[in-house]
């Protein structure tokens, strides 16, 4: 074969490859711009979610995956989502950002630009969600998230969010509800606050202080510590000496487990203990066993709240998942409902139309009533649960026939 023949063959291959690449590129752009794949047999749209499936937030992220997938599966089982008279199957593309903000941001971008997602669902906590919301704002893609306390999320963009929306409780509501529950039990009204220095822990501490003072309690000890601190003997000794009978806190589960163990060991037996974030997973019971009996836990969903779809949720998941897992997964289920129903109402995959439809959301969902405020947050209720024999029951707001167990039995 002559040199000329080889060169010609190479050029043909090169030209062919270029043509194929161009064709593929045009195809991708067309699909992305229309926001939908329109192959004859199945029409589909892609929704993306970058979740913290591993790392310190892995527990929350795994529950998010359960919630998001459940709603998408429900819609697909019913034939798909109805958009402008046609039904589309939903491809839910989930990536693991390993609880890293930079990865979360990069993955949100890739889900839109590479995978053709027409909308995004967010990851847990502002650390993960806010960078993703920034990407959504930049790319003009609707973004609905949850597991972000409202003020932290709403104030994270100085110019105000345009395409990002959050469905969760408000920090002030959290503090007030916890303070009110703490006073259900008779005590000397002396409170010790234990908060880690993560963003939410720092934000919540002054709100807890204000809320307990407003309820006539007295803060006798305020203890802050950076994660991954798990040694609390000096704080416990101080709180015990100050006579605290109520312990309120916000920290990672490893710290919470260590704190309760050390409280028991050092003979500090407060009547009321609620450690937000720490006690919010099944591992709380696995790690502490009966020691956890009577400890409080924050809930955003409970069967006793009687939100829409509760019987169906219990029927579908009740045997497989515990109430504490459901309490974490159902808000994500609800956030996905908000997004998918907005897409359907928009009758289009156009980002602007979907975004406008999200803004007009006003109705009951699995997580309660959702209506967005000017700062793009929808305030859901904050409930308090109590661990009893490995299960969680809602105790505040009060539920008929259910009483808060006082004092905390695990520490007695």
């Amino acid at each position, binding site marked *: 074969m002559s040199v000329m023949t080889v060169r010609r063959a190479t050029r043909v291959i090169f030209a062919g490859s270029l043509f194929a690449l161009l064709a593929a590129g045009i195809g991708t752009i067309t699909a992305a711009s229309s926001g939908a794949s329109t192959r004859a047999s199945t029409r589909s749209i892609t929704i993306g979610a970058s979740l913290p499936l*591993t*790392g*310190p*937030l*892995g*527990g929350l*992220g*795994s529950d998010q995956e359960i919630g998001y997938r459940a709603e998408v599966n429900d819609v697909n089982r019913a034939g798909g989502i109805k958009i402008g008279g046609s039904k589309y199957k939903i491809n839910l593309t989930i990536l693991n950002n390993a*609880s890293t903000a930079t990865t979360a941001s990069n993955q949100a971008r890739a889900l839109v630009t590479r995978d053709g997602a027409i909308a995004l669902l967010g990851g847990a906590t502002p650390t993960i969600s806010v960078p993703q919301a920034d990407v959504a704002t930049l790319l003009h893609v609707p973004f609905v998230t949850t597991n972000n306390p409202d003020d932290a999320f709403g104030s994270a963009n100085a110019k105000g969010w345009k395409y990002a929306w959050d469905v969760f409780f408000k920090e002030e509501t959290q503090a007030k509800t916890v303070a009110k529950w703490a006073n259900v039990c008779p005590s000397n009204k002396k409170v010790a606050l234990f908060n880690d*220095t993560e963003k939410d822990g720092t934000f919540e501490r002054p709100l807890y202080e204000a809320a307990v003072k407003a309820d006539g309690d007295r803060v006798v000890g305020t*203890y*802050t*510590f*950076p994660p*991954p*601190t*798990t*040694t609390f*003997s*000096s*704080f416990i*000794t101080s709180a015990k*000496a100050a006579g605290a009978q109520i312990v309120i806190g916000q920290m*990672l*589960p*490893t*710290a*919470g*487990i*260590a704190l309760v*163990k*050390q409280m*028991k*060991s*050092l*003979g500090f037996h407060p009547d009321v203990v609620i450690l937000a974030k*720490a006690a919010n*997973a*099944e*591992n709380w019971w*696995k*790690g*502490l*066993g009966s*020691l956890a009996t009577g400890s409080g836990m924050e809930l955003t969903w409970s069967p006793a709240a009687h939100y829409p779809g509760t019987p169906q949720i219990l029927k579908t998941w009740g045997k497989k998942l515990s109430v504490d897992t459901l309490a974490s997964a159902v808000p994500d289920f609800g956030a996905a409902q908000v997004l998918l129903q907005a897409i359907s109402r928009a009758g289009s995959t156009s980002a602007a139309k979907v975004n406008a439809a999200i803004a007009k959301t006003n109705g009951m969902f699995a997580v309660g009533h959702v209506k967005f405020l000017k700062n793009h947050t929808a305030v859901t209720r904050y409930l308090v649960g109590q661990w009893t024999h490995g299960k969680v029951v809602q105790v505040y707001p009060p539920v008929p026939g259910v009483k808060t167990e006082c004092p905390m039995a695990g520490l007695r």
Partner: protein
Amino acid sequence: MNATTLVNGALEGGLYALVALGLSLVFGVLRLINLAHGVLVIGAAYAALELFELFRLGPFAALPIVIVVAAVFGYLLQRLMLTNLLLKGPEAGIVGTFGLAVLGEAAFAAAFTSNGVSLQSSLATSSFKIGGVTLEMVLVTACAIAVACAGALQFGLKRTRAGSVLRAAAKDPSTAELMGINVRLVFALTVALAAALAAVGGVLYGVSTGFAPTSDTSLLLIAVAVVVVGGVGNITGTLVAGLAMGLVQAISVSVFGGGYADFTVYVLFFVVLIARPKGLFGQGAL
């Protein structure tokens, strides 16, 4: 600041020393900073948790099994991976153990989720009083085991033939080999022993507090600080440095607040590194 805080702080330091002993041993003998040491510690805690889930074995009933599994793992790790890497230079060993640490964290997260867990034992919630000072049982136990392990190790290294062989291999591997010592076997047994010590530390750590797949990093950092402050390969130094670190941490928390616990430890670490690069007690038996 009260006596209970200070005493429990020092006892917590005993747990640090227990975790650091294996690292010091490998550092002293193989001249390797085993960045996977934290993963070995946390791996032992997870192994005990799994034995509880499978056979309802309590942490201390599971401990002998965990020790044997860890030792076999350590032995195989040295024979199958570290020997070849160390022949290429110390950097390869560090990179290799770093890779293992990353892999271990990911494996634990996949197998056990990222949620914090703990080993249940009545020891973790028991205490006793001496003259008005409340002592946490789990920390007293950890400290006592640390002292026993350090003593046995020191005795073994200085007073037994096996110790002489190990010291010879550590000091000059080439000459030791010429004298008929199977250096590769000695190194493998050293890593096995270090892994066994890590297992003891891991189970006690799991009983005393909560742990998660990412807990290995903070444990490794504390252990490195203890080893450097105590003197590389100095067993007694490691024990004393561990106790001192725990005490310093307790004092700093009492005086400056919780935010300065680790900061104070690392300040101490850097001061010692600059003022006495060989550690407060110099290089020991190794």
